[in-house]
């Protein structure tokens, strides 16, 4: 595609580090292996008493321990559960990126995160909110419900002085943060950006909120089969939690310092559906244009994309409209890309979903393996996409695309390229 002279020339952006915390494991390797094995560790909720709620199941991160020395006791007071996941994932990503002191100017190192709502919990409401104890000295800890705290701690952790950005566009939050991080480097505003997302909505307020909307699965008796994207019998999503963080870097810098490059980011699209707050436009207005924009951004022909990690929430409307959108952009013929939604194995990580799913795309490119589509007992004929097999499958893959679709109408698409 010829370069538009009105648009500034872009730099190449590569990924040099990834860290993850999910129900499948507290690092990327365990998470990836869990996906290859087709594990679905959903179970009855233990984080709170969900026994009388309509949805009683989730993909929980259990036995999580934040390694010593990453944050101070003072900082711990500013962080909630999801932020702890985020700190751990950043540490893993930075270790893999192996950025030594002095290799990047701190003013060219930025932080750009997608964060969840960080709602208060029932315990806090009982202690502070309902009795109106506004003079309670512990009220300063309320700051941990402010989502931007994580970016501040991460900046301190990695020595970033290039600015902190925190984004919330519901389920598209970290897809959007990755996109903006990519653009910061591509257009020369930063050399390295620590990006990704963290979220945990496995709490009373959030779960009942989604229950009230009818968005969650009620297959409490079969938690491991409850999240079934693109299956004809899907009845809603199953909540997940965790974090995924990536180190995005200017290719020239990564090359100069001899960094191991995991993949190249080569396209970002973002649109607004302007339809309804929860529903998708029936013809896919928004997701279609986001995917087209991402392809055009990197000059990637649709036919080159071999795998799409769909948003695929396992709700009736999302999966149907997203599948139709994919079919519009990529066609339905034999050359159409393989599609899967890994939410059947991670649960819906909400604001962290986009980052986790791009990381899965990158591993698919690195290891030339298509993630499995589990829990598809009968593919919905209204979802005309070529799903991946029920087991992980070796493949030849050059480009992969990750979709995110959020309540509120924000849609993102990111394209990653295999690094050889």
């Amino acid at each position, binding site marked *: 595609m010829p370069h538009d002279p009105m648009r500034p020339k872009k730099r190449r952006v590569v990924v040099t580090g990834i860290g993850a915390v999910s129900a499948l494991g507290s690092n990327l390797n365990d998470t990836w292996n869990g996906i290859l094995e087709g594990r679905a560790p959903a179970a009855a909720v233990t984080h709170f008493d969900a026994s009388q709620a309509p949805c009683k199941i989730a993909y929980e991160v259990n036995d999580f321990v934040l390694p010593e020395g990453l944050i101070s006791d003072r900082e711990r007071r500013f962080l909630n559960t999801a932020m702890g996941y985020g700190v751990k994932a950043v540490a893993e990503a930075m270790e893999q990126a192996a950025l030594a002191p002095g290799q990047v100017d701190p003013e060219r190192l930025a932080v750009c995160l997608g964060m969840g709502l960080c709602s208060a919990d029932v315990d806090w409401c009982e202690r502070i909110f309902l009795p109106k104890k*506004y003079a309670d000295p512990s009220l300063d800890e309320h700051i941990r419900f402010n989502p931007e705290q994580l970016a501040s701690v991460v900046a301190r952790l990695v020595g970033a002085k290039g600015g902190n950005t925190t984004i919330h566009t519901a389920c598209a939050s970290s897809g959007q943060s990755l996109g903006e991080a990519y653009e910061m480097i591509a257009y020369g505003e930063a050399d390295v950006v620590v990006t990704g997302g963290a979220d945990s909505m496995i709490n009373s307020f959030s779960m009942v909120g989604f229950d009230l909307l009818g968005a969650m699965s009620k297959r409490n008796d079969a938690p491991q089969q409850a999240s079934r994207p693109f299956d004809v019998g899907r009845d809603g999503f199953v909540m997940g939690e965790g974090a995924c963080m990536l180190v995005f870097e200017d290719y020239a810098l990564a090359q100069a310092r001899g960094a191991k490059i995991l993949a190249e980011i080569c396209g970002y699209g973002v649109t607004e559906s302007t339809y309804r*707050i929860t529903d998708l436009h029936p013809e896919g207005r928004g997701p279609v244009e986001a995917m087209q924009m991402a392809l055009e951004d990197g000059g990637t022909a649709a036919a080159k994309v071999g795998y799409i990690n769909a948003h695929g929430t396992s709700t009736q409307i999302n999966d149907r409209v997203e599948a139709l959108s994919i079919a519009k952009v990529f066609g339905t013929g034999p050359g159409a890309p393989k599609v899967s939604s890994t939410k059947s194995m991670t649960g819906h990580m909400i604001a962290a979903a986009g980052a986790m799913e791009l990381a899965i795309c990158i591993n698919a490119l690195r290891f030339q393996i298509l993630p499995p589509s589990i829990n598809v007992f009968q593919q919905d004929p209204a979802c005309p996409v070529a799903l991946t097999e029920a087991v992980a499958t070796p493949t030849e893959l050059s480009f992969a695309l990750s979709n995110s679709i959020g309540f509120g109408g924000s849609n993102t698409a990111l394209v990653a390229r295999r690094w050889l």
Partner: protein
Amino acid sequence: MTQRADELVITGVGVASAGAYGLEAHWELLRQGAVKANATAYSMRDFKAAAHLKEPRLLKAVSATDAIGLAALADVQRTGAWTADAYPAPRTGLYTGSPGPSSFDLCPYIEAMEAARDGDGSIDEGAFGRTAMSARPTTLLASLANNVLCYGSMMFHAQGPNSNYISGELSGHLAVQHAAKRLRRQQLDYVVAGGFGAHSEAIDTGMYTHLGLLLAEGSESTHTVMPYAGGEDARRGMVLADGAAFVALERRGAATARGAKILATYIGGGIASDGLGPLRSDPEGVAYSRMILRTLTQAGVDPTQIALILANASGIDALDSCEINALQRVFGGLGAAYEPPALGVTTRVFGNLMEASGIIELGLVSRLFAHGELPAVMTAPASVGFSNRLPSRTPAASYALVLKASPWGEYSCILLRREDL
């Protein structure tokens, strides 16, 4: 001054605060020096957003905070002479800065929590899972932090690139800067950007008080933030203010062609952080000053061309010191003959508008240039070394800097050029 058709201009400003609605009304507040007396926070609890919206139905499923944001967006439509057919929907965007969830969002669950109390009076969380099912189905939706992005996009038919920042006081500034980048890269033709927030409720005021950031309630007859003041006049904290402010940005050529009134030229912006972690900022203002210098350098603007600085001036001692030190690093060594820029503050009148702060100022720049001097209520103490009058050396000094800083050691600046009104 050469004007280019592809440079970015501000063509609309929408503002809603506890003091007034609309940019002109806010300018009048500043001119009259209308300081709020005995205010612990500038609350918009009684604000009637529906009166300002063409489609009040948009307010059905949003919070009171969101309603303030949507009312300010309606003001952008009015003042910016926006029409639905001016630009294609895919080339129109909205960038918002919003607060995270508020404790008010939990109010719909109060009844359910009370109904879930067990014999000893404590809340049975298991029972809450059942009692909460009597709440409104859309309860969760009202607490989404991107509601204004969603409904505002519908108002403007904005189907292009968008985002929503939840970065505290920098949120609105981040929205404007990212929006401008999209225009500059030719990815959008028209974009509305800014922020909104409402933190005057008891939980947030209590939290900020305990964090040591809020001006303590006193017996002074004028209980207002006094930025940069020392000695007996020292006021050690900010005053929270509810409000919303947005600007419309487009390219000059297109704005002129559609007859839009141009309020200022957007030149550039920058962000930085001290990287010291939560509630820590560098008292020397090194990263802050380097961000300003970097922004000027990238724009090809010399510090001597800055005639007006609209400062963050929160009233928080540590942050004000950091800001003054940063400004001295940029402007302090320019020689004895150098006539310093005017340093204006709006926080005495507006309070700290948090996510919306630093946006009204973008609309006020050209008015201040036309006025020639700062209204008395906007002046900084002489001790900080800046002027109350705008330098007379125009057109060379035709630029203004609008600054934002947060107690988290995070900074932003936006560089504008005056437009002769």
